[in-house]
């Protein structure tokens, strides 16, 4: 008994001692990695086949990086810490050619002055391509298509065979990581990088991914990049045969950047998502009920748009084909998998207009010398210009009546045709392209804040902030124009032919600036804000989420906070108003007592009837087999997948100089030899002694 206790105690002590010595040697750090992704032809992003280790080396400027690369006398491998904006293809090549690089740490936001927003370069360079996703767009066949992001560096499409991690002081945990790494890097700098012991970081970033998307999916080491799109219509009784024209109001919900945990995309996508939600809210207050109008309104919020317009292309593909359900399961279908089949009620031939919000978060400065203020731009496809001109004229006309004094003082118009300078650039990269590929005759207008070039923050990890006045005004303006135009389209009238009742009704459509501001706050800084909380009760969780990334994630394997919120919000805005009976409440706060009817949903503690649905979004080149595995069906279409990983981690520890490491090794070998010799000798001596006895 005593013996067993002793053994147990010894084991416990050994474990504690091992844990203790691990903690003394290593400091595990929270991490924001760059990961590996694959498409039909190859890989992008980061991979490291073995655990990379590098002494921390701090570089604050371009000169520092050049100096590091050319500096002699540096003996080991290094983890180079640099501001995010110095992470360029040229610098990566320079560092790699020095043969001293183990890994890179890019600081996006930090408390040190060199990382402050004011230290950022005035001109950012978008890490996306010169024409994002255009290879899957409407003009993919045109080798000379217009380049919307001419300064794009294409960094996102580079392959790195070493780890790259980000640091960002966005929350407590990440600030701790930042402090630990910066403190260590500063210690090394103080020690001149040659006075050992120095601080080193070890990285584990092994990606299982292999070759290309097809191979990786076959081996089961990848998951399709994707998520859930959301569509909603106030017309609960919409059918594919009702012959009622449909007005589509569309926006994207996700964006991309090098570090998926940091992906925000305030300008890249959040501005358009907020615009759509604000439009839905304003239209829901129309004094003429939307479901009584001659035309349907359809809101579409697509996800995985940053990945070859996967969300919109899949939606258009599904509504355009008759679904042949081989294994039906009530209202859904098990194979091919569809969680519901209500999208079949949307007849693409009935779509009569598409109005899309693109990047609308930052109105540019006023055009000097023209007397006109900053304006939004309405883009149309030139090949179908005739069909779209009426819609374009209407949106410009609406813009001239909206008048937004704060955004555009003394302006003559608040939106103008993007081709008003006589150059036909066609549509910028947008979800509308997916519709036009299937139905080229649909009148389509894409509203953006740029005429010729996308934002320099497109797909950048720095696209994470907004201005409480400028951004809100800009979105408010775009939402006002879109909501009024959509309202006129749904009524099938224009400004000149409106009846007095209609004129009064359209006057009731006002964008709520506070809502725009709240939405921006909730979607960028704090998911546990009162607005989201009123729908989803997120603060009830033990760790209420704050800033959440806007990377779409991998299909079915991650929670989809923004689609869930967008669904709840749109469900509430498109709910069927029943004047005779008040809504049933308590379905969320008291679920055991109050249960909603089978055709109703519980949204914000109320049972409501709504035609708001999710729609799976992943590359249309990928299909799901009957055994739930994925395969490549058409490699010419988007097929983005993300690699499965081994656990990713960073740990900080002290390294001694290479010389003392050699001494340690030699001493160890000598000690082992000595021990073996001693054992042999003593064995002989004992044998001899025992024999003589």
């Amino acid at each position, binding site marked *: 008994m005593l013996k067993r206790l002793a053994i147990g105690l010894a084991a416990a002590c050994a474990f504690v001692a091992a844990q203790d010595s691990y903690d003394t040697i290593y400091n595990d750090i929270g991490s924001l990695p760059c990961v590996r992704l694959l498409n039909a032809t190859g890989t992008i992003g980061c*991979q490291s*086949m073995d655990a990379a280790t590098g002494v921390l080396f701090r570089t604050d400027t371009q000169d520092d990086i050049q100096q590091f690369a050319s500096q002699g006398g540096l003996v080991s491998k290094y983890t180079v810490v640099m501001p995010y904006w110095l992470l360029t293809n040229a610098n990566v090549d320079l560092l790699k050619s020095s043969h001293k690089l183990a890994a890179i740490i890019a600081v996006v936001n930090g408390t040190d002055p060199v990382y402050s927003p004011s230290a950022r370069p005035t001109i950012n360079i978008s890490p996306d391509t010169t024409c994002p996703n255009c290879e899957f767009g409407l003009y993919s066949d045109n080798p000379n298509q217009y380049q919307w992001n001419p300064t794009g560096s294409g960094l996102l499409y580079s392959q790195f065979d070493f780890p790259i991690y980000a640091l960002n002081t966005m929350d407590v945990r990440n600030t701790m990581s930042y402090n630990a790494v910066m403190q260590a890097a500063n210690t090394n700098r103080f020690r001149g990088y040659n006075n050992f012991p120095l601080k080193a970081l070890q990285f584990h970033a*092994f*990606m*299982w*991914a*292999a*070759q290309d998307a*097809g*191979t990786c999916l*076959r*081996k089961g*080491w990848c998951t399709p990049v994707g998520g859930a799109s959301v569509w909603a219509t106030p017309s609960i009784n919409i059918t594919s045969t009702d012959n009622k024209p449909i007005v589509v109001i569309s926006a994207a919900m996700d964006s991309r950047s090098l570090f998926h945990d940091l992906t925000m995309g305030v300008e890249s996508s959040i501005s358009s998502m907020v615009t759509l939600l604000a439009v839905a809210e304003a239209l829901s207050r129309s004094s003429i009920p939307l479901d009584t109008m001659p035309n349907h309104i359809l809101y579409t919020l697509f996800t995985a748009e940053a990945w070859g317009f996967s969300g919109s292309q899949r939606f258009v593909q599904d509504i355009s084909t008759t679904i042949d359900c081989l294994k039906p399961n009530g209202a859904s279908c098990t194979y091919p998998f569809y969680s519901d089949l209500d999208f079949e009620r949307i007849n693409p031939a009935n779509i009569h207009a598409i109005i899309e919000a693109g990047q609308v978060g930052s109105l540019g400065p006023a055009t000097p010398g023209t007397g006109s203020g900053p304006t939004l731009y309405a883009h149309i496809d030139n090949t179908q210009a005739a069909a779209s001109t009426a819609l374009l004229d209407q949106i410009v006309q609406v813009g001239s009546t909206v008048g937004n004094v704060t955004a555009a003082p003394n302006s003559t118009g608040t939106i103008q045709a993007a081709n008003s300078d006589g150059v036909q650039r066609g549509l910028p990269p947008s979800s509308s392209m997916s519709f036009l590929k299937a139905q080229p005759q649909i009148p389509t207008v894409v509203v953006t804040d740029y005429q010729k070039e996308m934002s320099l923050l497109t797909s950048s990890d720095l696209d994470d902030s907004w201005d409480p006045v400028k951004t809100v005004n800009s979105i408010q303006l775009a939402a006002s124009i879109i909501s009024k135009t959509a309202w006129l389209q749904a009524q099938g009238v224009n400004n000149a032919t409106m009846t007095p009742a209609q004129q009064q009704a359209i006057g009731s459509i006002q964008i709520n600036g506070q809502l725009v501001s709240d939405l921006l706050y909730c979607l960028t800084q704090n998911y546990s804000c009162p607005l989201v909380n009123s729908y989803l009760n997120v603060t009830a969780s033990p760790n209420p989420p704050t800033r959440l990334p806007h990377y779409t994630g991998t299909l079915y394997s991650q929670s989809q906070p923004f689609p869930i919120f967008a669904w709840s919000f749109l469900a509430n805005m498109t709910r069927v108003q029943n004047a005779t009976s008040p809504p049933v409440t308590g379905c969320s706060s008291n679920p055991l007592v109050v249960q909603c009817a089978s055709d109703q949903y519980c949204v914000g503690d109320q049972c409501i009837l709504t035609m708001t649905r999710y729609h799976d979004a992943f590359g249309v080149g990928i299909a799901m087999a009957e055994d739930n595995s994925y395969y490549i069906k058409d490699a010419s279409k988007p097929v983005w997948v993300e690699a499965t990983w081994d656990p990713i981690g960073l740990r900080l520890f002290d390294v001694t100089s290479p010389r003392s490491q050699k001494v340690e090794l030699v001493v160890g070998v000598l000690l082992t030899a000595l021990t073996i010799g001693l054992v042999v000798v003593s064995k002989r001596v004992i044998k001899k002694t025992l024999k003589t006895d």
Partner: protein
Amino acid sequence: MAKPIERMGSHEILVVSRKLFLGGFCLLPFLWVFNILYIWPVRNRPDLSPQVRRYLIMSGVLSIAMFVIFATWYGVFVDHRLNWGARGDTLTVVLVKGV
């Protein structure tokens, strides 16, 4: 304990050598190599049947042929298995992650 080869009679050696030679055709090419190594010490005994010598020579030729075939296959497999797609995966026992 088996009898050492030196103490075996010539007929016994002939039987062993034939068994090993024929056994090699049951997808056990190492038996041919073993045949040569096993009989080697007594290969020049005058009382040995000339049949044994023939078995040894054929075992040698076949084992070298198998070595060449295996080595070539291995080289081709390692070099091309990733390009063979699904078939390459089926032929691989343990798939190597990351490639």
